[in-house]
């Protein structure tokens, strides 16, 4: 007999895992959440994602789906109310393009900024700020990337929240109102959204996470 219902394997501090929580909550889908310990992965996780052995994994009626954007599209196509992707194919292509940009360009740079120092770090910060300016070009005067309400690209851009917490924890200055006013405004709106704000790591615990993991590798300016 196939398992019924929805399960999400994730970790509290993973932006990829939190993306799925946003999507499920937006759709009002009930799910069982399983917190994984990535240093001791459960047999269930290894069984459901044998190729990558990573979170997040969504299991729906016993069938696993892995990779955050693949899961988000699956959720959008399975539960059709409160759409995450826009209806128009060109708008969808734009959302997918920028989401890929975030994972392929922004995410590696954001990780790199935490482990570099001095001139090299400054170079990475410049790179990230340019990437965020590019994102501002896509946002323009809209309330969210998705328009009046947040959508696929807003959820994908959740990594920016992680960067903002990291910069506070480690005393860096990357995203601020002066340098990136459009993105800054977007961020405030996102963090005030009733659904979205439930799906970010608790602030104090998240600050501690960055301090403990990366604190010693950041040189003072």
């Amino acid at each position, binding site marked *: 007999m196939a398992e019924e219902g929805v399960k999400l394997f994730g970790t509290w501090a993973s932006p990829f895992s939190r993306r799925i929580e946003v999507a499920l909550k937006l759709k009002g889908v009930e799910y069982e959440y399983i917190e994984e310990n990535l240093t001791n992965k459960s047999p269930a996780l290894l069984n459901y994602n044998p*190729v990558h052995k990573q979170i997040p994994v969504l299991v*729906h009626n016993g*069938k696993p*789906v*892995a*990779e955050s*954007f*693949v*899961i988000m*599209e*699956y959720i959008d*196509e*399975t539960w059709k109310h409160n759409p995450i992707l826009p209806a128009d*194919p*060109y708008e*969808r*292509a734009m959302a*997918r*393009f920028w989401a*890929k*940009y975030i994972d392929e360009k922004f995410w590696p740079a954001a990780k790199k900024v935490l482990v570099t120092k001095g001139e090299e770090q400054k170079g990475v910060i410049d790179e990230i700020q340019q990437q965020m300016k*590019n994102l501002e070009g896509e946002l323009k005067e809209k309330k969210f990337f998705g328009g009046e309400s947040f959508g696929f690209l807003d959820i994908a851009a959740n990594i920016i929240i992680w960067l903002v917490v990291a910069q506070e924890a480690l005393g860096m200055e990357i995203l601020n109102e002066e340098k990136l006013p459009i993105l800054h405004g977007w961020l405030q709106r996102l963090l005030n959204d009733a659904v979205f704000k439930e799906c970010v790591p608790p602030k104090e615990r998240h600050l501690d996470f960055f301090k403990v993991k990366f604190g010693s590798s950041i040189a003072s300016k």
Partner: protein
Amino acid sequence: MASGSVANQEGKVMLLGFWCSPFVKRVEWALKFKGVEYDYVEEDLTNKSTLLLTSNPIHKKVPVLIHNGNPIVESLVIIEYIDETWKQNPILPQDPYERAMARFWANFIEQKVTEPARDALLSQGEQQEKKVKEIKEAMEVVEGEAKAKLNDKTIFFGGENGVGYVDIVLGWTCNWMETVEEVGGFKVLDPESQPQFHKWMANFREVPFIKPTLGPKEKLVEYFRMVRQACLGLVANK
């Protein structure tokens, strides 16, 4: 002709490409599969056109699909756009779970086969060895999938619909992988340990709209040899 391939300005489809790019080729396969008429513009990548630079300011790369004056970039994004805009001959499956599986495997191919292959082409020594190992491991997984999904009746990953998304994304291996092996000086293809994958390649090469697009290997080898030498030369001169 299939509906949607109109000749007037409004429906105009243009593809900015480069003759030996497997990413461009994928997009052409998707367009041909759907019977969509398009204008092809060959770019000189050493002297990129204003149209290319304004259509893809972020990456400045081909392929770029321009439809109704709107540019779409990144081959996988373009293919999904094509599938959603022209509904005949679906490329992705209909069922959401099957679609998720197709997307998952497309991503796997890109991250574990395509990108390391490009890296292996442009590197040498230990760095290249590392990439070759990655590709070989990935090919084991691909062979496993081929064994699980394909048989005498189902010869493509698209299943009963014939060629599908995964076939189109993996298709570059049919022509370019041997080129990359020859130019890079390594081997990842092995008919003995990859029998199902080799069967799939043989079948893919024979697909009527694919076959004429698989250009002469000698030209590809010549071009990629030049690219490799230029790249390694840059590294050596640093």
